[in-house]
């Protein structure tokens, strides 16, 4: 099966090496020219035309299409590598040097691509509809946002004034509680993996998990109190060198929150799971809005630091970047590396035992369980993995924006990420990246560009300005994709095999499989697809 999963351009497809390279050169040239302010001002009328927001959005979109074509088209390997690496590592930063908003946009696209890849694991592979995904993004963002900004000093001051109990004692109790409860949780887990879980083990596991949370809170509190005298020294937040430590921490924090949220709710299925995750996401947002001490409430936290890497800054300076662009370039490279890592993890996971378990659960939970897939554990891993990607990207987002507030973590963000996954194709990695790129471009460039361009046209009223119709467009994408092409723009190969049989494939078992996916049975909670048109069993009222 694995062999068929590899992407194989059809043998009959024409070789497009020359076209690809030409397209790359032309769009790169346009991108470089159209974002170079000095050059544009010398070019007169052409310059003005290129500066038009719609043209600019088009240029960026066409340029980014390069990377897509390098992936899709049949071309010589060297050309595909050249276009991919050249556009991401050379042309984009070079154009971004002249116009920082381009770097900003690319970081944003990649952040959303990573989020979509994370949600894809949860929704696309494991079939768990999560409408509160942005909560994990918020966890990552606030983890660094709090310690990497002046907020940290405020919190320390507060704890210095309200120490409550002896600190060393609290710390000791907290540490002991944490270690003991974590150990007992592991022990109970080992017990239940051998024998069937009983009510006693289930309850003691829950008790231990409550104890673990209490222990961690006590420990953190004690550490904060002990650190309180340093408050003045930390008026600007932790040293930026801690960025790397917190990059790792944000992964764990988000994964831990994923497990914490997942443990109680993953027993639920389908729409119940959707609505409860929506509720929990909203709870986290309301908490961020109201816990003024930690999150500064609706005012938000600012300024948030980014890491400073001296040799990187020196290199950027040598390449002609202005000092205030260093951090953006750094984050661009960081996020590129992260995407590479996340993509690798994704591909490896997809082909691993756990990935197959996810897909089994998505397709038929009961059957998967009967085949010995541990439901809870597998779903929790999916939740935690998806959450950890979101956590890491949340932190990078906080460092890029230098400002976070609860406004960035609303339900609409979750839905935007969901629409990326659906637009691209659930379960397909290149698909969700494409989805993320399209939706982000639409949101940040194309719609605002259209809005700007139409702002002065009298017959388009201000209220119907395309720049403000994001919800409408998201909604239309969701509905249209579900009605017309539920498998997405770049469907996953495996799902295509499952759903779209060629007529020459006379595999009885495979036929039955497709039928099961498409039948009207309400018990199949698959993340799946509207039945393909050729599947007459699923027709319903069609």
């Amino acid at each position, binding site marked *: 099966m694995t062999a068929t999963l590899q992407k194989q351009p059809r043998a009959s497809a024409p070789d497009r090496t020359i076209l690809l390279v030409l397209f790359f050169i032309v769009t790169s040239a346009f991108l470089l020219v159209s974002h170079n302010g000095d050059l544009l001002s010398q070019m007169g009328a052409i310059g003005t035309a290129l500066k038009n927001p719609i043209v600019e959005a088009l240029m960026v979109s066409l340029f980014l299409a390069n990377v897509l074509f390098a992936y899709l088209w049949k071309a010589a390997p060297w050309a595909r590598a050249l276009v991919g690496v050249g556009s991401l590592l050379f042309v984009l930063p070079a154009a971004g040097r002249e116009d920082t908003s381009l770097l900003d946009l690319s970081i944003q696209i990649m952040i959303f691509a990573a989020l979509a890849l994370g949600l894809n694991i949860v929704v696309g592979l494991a079939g768990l509809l999560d409408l509160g995904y942005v909560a994990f993004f918020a966890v990552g963002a606030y983890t660094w946002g709090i310690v990497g900004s002046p907020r940290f000093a405020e919190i320390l001051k507060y704890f210095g004034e309200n120490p409550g109990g002896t600190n060393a004692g609290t710390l000791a109790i907290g540490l002991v509680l944490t270690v003991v409860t974590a150990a007992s949780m592991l022990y109970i887990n080992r017990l239940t993996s051998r024998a069937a879980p009983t009510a006693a083990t289930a309850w003691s596991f829950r008790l231990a998990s409550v104890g673990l949370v209490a222990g961690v809170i006590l420990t953190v509190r004690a550490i904060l109190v002990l650190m309180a005298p340093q408050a003045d020294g930390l008026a600007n937040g932790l040293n930026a060198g801690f960025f790397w430590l917190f990059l790792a921490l944000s992964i764990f924090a988000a994964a831990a929150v994923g497990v914490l949220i997942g443990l109680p709710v993953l027993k639920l299925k389908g729409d119940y799971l959707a609505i409860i995750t929506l509720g929990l996401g909203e709870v986290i947002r309301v908490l961020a809005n109201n816990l003024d001490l930690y999150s500064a409430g609706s005012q938000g936290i600012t300024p948030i630091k980014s890491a400073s890497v001296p040799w990187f800054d020196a290199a950027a300076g040598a390449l002609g970047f202005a000092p205030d662009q260093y951090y953006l370039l750094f984050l661009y490279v960081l996020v590129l590396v992260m995407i590479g890592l996340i993509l690798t993890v994704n591909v490896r996971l997809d082909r691993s035992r756990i990935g197959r378990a996810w897909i089994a659960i998505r397709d038929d939970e009961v059957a998967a369980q009967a085949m010995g897939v541990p439901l809870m554990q597998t779903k929790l891993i999916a939740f935690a993995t998806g959450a950890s990607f979101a956590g890491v990207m949340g932190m990078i987002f906080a460092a890029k924006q230098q400002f976070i507030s609860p406004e960035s973590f609303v339900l609409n963000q979750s839905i935007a990420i969901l629409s990326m996954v659906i637009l691209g194709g659930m379960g397909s990695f290149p698909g969700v990246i494409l989805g993320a790129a399209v939706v982000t471009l639409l949101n940040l460039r194309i719609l605002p560009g259209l809005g700007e361009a139409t702002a002065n046209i009298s017959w388009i009223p201000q209220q119907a300005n395309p720049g403000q119709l994001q*919800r409408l467009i998201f909604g239309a994408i969701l509905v249209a994709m579900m009605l017309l092409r539920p498998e997405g723009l770049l469907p996953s190969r495996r799902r295509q095999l499952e759903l779209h049989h060629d007529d020459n494939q006379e595999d009885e078992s495979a036929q039955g499989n497709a039928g099961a996916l498409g039948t009207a049975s309400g018990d199949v909670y698959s993340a799946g697809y509207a039945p393909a048109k050729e599947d007459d069993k699923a027709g319903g009222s069609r």
Partner: protein
Amino acid sequence: MELSTLLPFLANVIVGGLVLGFVYAIIALGYTMVYGVLQLINFAHSEVFVTGAVVGFEVFRVLAPVNMNGYLKLLIALLAAMTISGLLNVIIERLAYRPLRGAPKLVPLITAIGVSLILQDVLRVIEGFQGRFDLTYTLPNGFAAPFCGPESSCVGLGKFLTGIGVSLQLKDVILIIVSLLSLAVLNYIVNRTRMGKAIRAVAQDRVTAGLMGIDGNRMISATFLIGGALGGISGVLFGMKFGTVNAYSGFIPGVTAFTAAVLGGIGSIPGAVLGGLLLGVLEKLIGVSNVFGELLGIKNLAVIDDSYSKLGAFIALVLILIFKPTGLLGKSNVEKV
């Protein structure tokens, strides 16, 4: 706070919660009816309900200069909202959900989310053309007056309520009466008419009902019509109760009402009402936790104020789904393999 003032305070909170609860209950009925028949969470219902609120606003606005009995205006507003919301719901069902009949559950759910987003922006644009965003209800004269005027004119329950210090407004009483009336009508339709019987049959088993000569699609449309009409009523009541509505204000009451439906046992009509009332009271009680915090000297409770009150529904939702997913009055659904 003195103990002597606590009782009237509590009574006020509870009565206020019940009034709010009736609004939630009627919205919850829209969710529960659709869920009962299609097993679909109609995310778009919150926008259908906001549409009702907007229609109600427009009727009150247009009729404001007209010299007409206030109750007649209310009746017209309710009927208009019912018609438009009901038709809207039917259209949504026809265009967005019917083509997906039989698809895996996630598909119509995502479509519902999409429809809800589309409706939000459409409503905003439509109202935006007139330069409006926050719609402020101008009710007919007298609706905001205290219920039963001077205390001496009160009788029966009204006298008792004002006696223990509850201040009710006329609009609250109207709200309760309209809710009870629509409940009675709904109860009649579902339990006493041929159509109600057919709807229940379709809810139980669409295929078998089809074999018995019931047109499943027509009954589903009827359900959406009734659900939408209830959404329209609740929209007008919501507008009357809160005074302002905008295109995006459906989300929180929508989730709260859905929680109410789940709390009572989704698919169960009395359950939705019970859930709505409980959540209304819960929300009001959380909103005043700071009062109890001060009273009992609990510092942590004292910081919880009105801004947390919307969390009540979410926390209730999480707890119910974890501990009793079938809800208070729901029947457990045995999973078939």
